[in-house]
């Protein structure tokens, strides 16, 4: 992408152009290696060469590779493990993407995909479906209601935050907090009303990639691809908007339009992630933060790096609870337990970092 081939530019820029290329390449290779590695890990250990043979054997004309592989292994890898692994990676990438975008739009490095109440809305929708035991769409009922919940929440938050001067970031954050508080009370009410179902609700709220199917994979990958396309298209506008809306407007950016498009895109991507996996906190907050120290705040670099890093992080966390720990802990609990303290560290560093705030 970067004009790496030309010799006439500034050497420093060529270096950073090459650096972003290597960063993306290394992260992509790490992610691919982790997918193969984690496919072999679990209750049934499968050697990595067998995993590769199973995956490549799926390609047309390559079926001979499966000769000599235990006939149970292809089922375990392609029907059980790969859907879960790929969903975890896609959700991690989606949460990281929407984290980058929310932090950029809300001009707040501590915003995350859930700041605007997307998770609270999804939680209420899912709890509602579980409470009434709605099963009209089979396994899709809970994700569907979770998605509707976050969509309605987003609409309410945008409506609350909009004024004659447009959508300001502080209005959005405040509206998100207010709406989230109301929705959390709604979830508590449902938990109180149900008796035997309460454990199902709590389990969903803690997040899990257990029993994911290829349909989940395609759904999250589709949402991720669409989100990446739109956010990539507006990444330069997002950079300029960091200078404030008046400056951005004077540089030819339609800040109201771009902010609304990116807000809706990022919210829908995170809503799809939440509806598939339950609530997994801190990935969308931390990954963009860590990646910003690698790439700087330029969104044209930050977005691809964050997506790969988010996929690696969540796949790693899910593999840890699935195959390494003696008992599976809900993934949302694991990310909150490790991400929370890290968040405190970053926050404290920001307080003492000598950054001019005004």
């Amino acid at each position: 992408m970067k004009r790496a081939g030309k010799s006439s530019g500034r050497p420093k820029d060529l270096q950073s152009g090459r650096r972003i290329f290597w960063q993306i390449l290394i992260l992509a290779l790490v992610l691919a290696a982790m997918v193969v590695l984690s496919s072999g890990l679990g209750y049934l250990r499968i050697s990595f060469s067998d995993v590769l043979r199973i995956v490549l054997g799926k390609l047309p004309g390559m079926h001979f590779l499966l000769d000599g592989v235990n006939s149970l292994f292809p089922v375990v890898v392609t029907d059980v493990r790969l859907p879960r692994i790929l969903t975890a990676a896609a959700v991690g990438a989606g949460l990281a993407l929407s984290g980058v975008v929310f932090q950029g739009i809300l001009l707040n490095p501590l915003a995350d995909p859930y700041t605007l109440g997307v998770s609270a809305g999804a939680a209420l929708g899912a709890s509602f479906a579980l409470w009434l035991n709605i099963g009209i769409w089979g396994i899709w009922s809970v994700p569907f209601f979770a998605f509707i919940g976050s969509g309605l929440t987003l609409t309410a938050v945008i409506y609350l935050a909009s004024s004659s001067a447009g959508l300001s970031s502080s209005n959005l954050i405040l509206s998100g907090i207010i709406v989230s508080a109301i929705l959390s009370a709604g979830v508590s009410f449902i938990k109180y009303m149900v008796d035997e179902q309460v454990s199902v609700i709590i389990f969903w709220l803690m997040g899990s990639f257990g029993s994911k199917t290829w349909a989940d994979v395609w759904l999250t990958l589709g949402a991720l691809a669409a989100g990446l396309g739109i956010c990539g298209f507006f990444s330069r506008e997002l950079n300029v908007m960091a200078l404030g809306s008046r400056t951005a407007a004077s540089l030819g950016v339609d800040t109201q339009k771009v902010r609304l498009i990116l807000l809706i895109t990022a919210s829908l991507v995170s809503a799809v992630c939440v509806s598939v996996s339950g609530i997994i906190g801190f990935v969308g907050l931390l990954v963009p933060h860590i990646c910003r120290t690698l790439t700087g705040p330029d969104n044209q670099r930050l977005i691809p790096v964050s997506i790969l890093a988010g996929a690696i992080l969540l796949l790693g966390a899910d593999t840890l609870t699935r195959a390494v720990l003696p008992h599976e802990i809900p993934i949302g609990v694991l990310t909150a337990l490790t991400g929370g303290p890290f968040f405190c560290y970053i926050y404290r560093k920001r307080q003492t970092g000598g950054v001019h705030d005004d």
Partner: protein
Amino acid sequence: MTIETEHVSFGYGGQPAVSDVSLKLRAGMFYGILGPNGCGKTTLVDLLIRHRTPDAGSVSYEGKPLSTYSRKQIARKFALVPQQYSVNFPFTSRQVVMMGRYPHLGRFAFPGPADHRQVDEIMDQTGTREFENRFISELSGGERQRVIFARALVQDTPVLILDEATSNLDISHAISLFGLVFRQVTDKGKTVVAVMQDINLAALFCQYLILMKRGRVVHHGPCDQVLTENAIQSVFNVKSKVYEDSYAEARQVVFNRSSHVP
């Protein structure tokens, strides 16, 4: 005639901020807008660059209504140094200045050697090159303002709007930056519209003054005609002495401790 406003009015929720302003601004002139706090100066410049659209009246640029220009076209004609700015992410100074080239670049095009040369040149002229690789969030208020100023100059537009652009700067940097844009006015025929607080600084550089009060333009004309004791008293409610200063080679204004007229 570069910028022309005809009976322009604008209000915030029924509260008029700019009322019936008709001005003709010519290319190659340095205009200063003076007036007390809250008199509509910033709103007026926002109307000139279509950051806001007038409730009544019209603004045109080079004979065509401003509404017929696309956002990108406007960004290639007008650059703005805003009064307030905050940069929440650690962009380097150079990255911020380079953003001024965005209106001239295709969406997926990266800045080329010519863009880099232009950034180098402007950063040298504005004295911001020495901290080009430092994060803008770590700079002092004055240093940051110079970076924002350089960002607007790199935009390389025929019209430059300065909204209290030197309010955080020491006198040396203020004179140096105003001198820089003044030479662009006289040598390259650029148009500068500067909202200012410092009357004497305005008198040094502005060829034409626009005095505003309560949303209306009350006096406008060449600096040496508009800048009078009566005009200053009617706009700012202060008594003053206006005189031709031989050192400044311009009119200057002095006040005393009891200048304020209640």
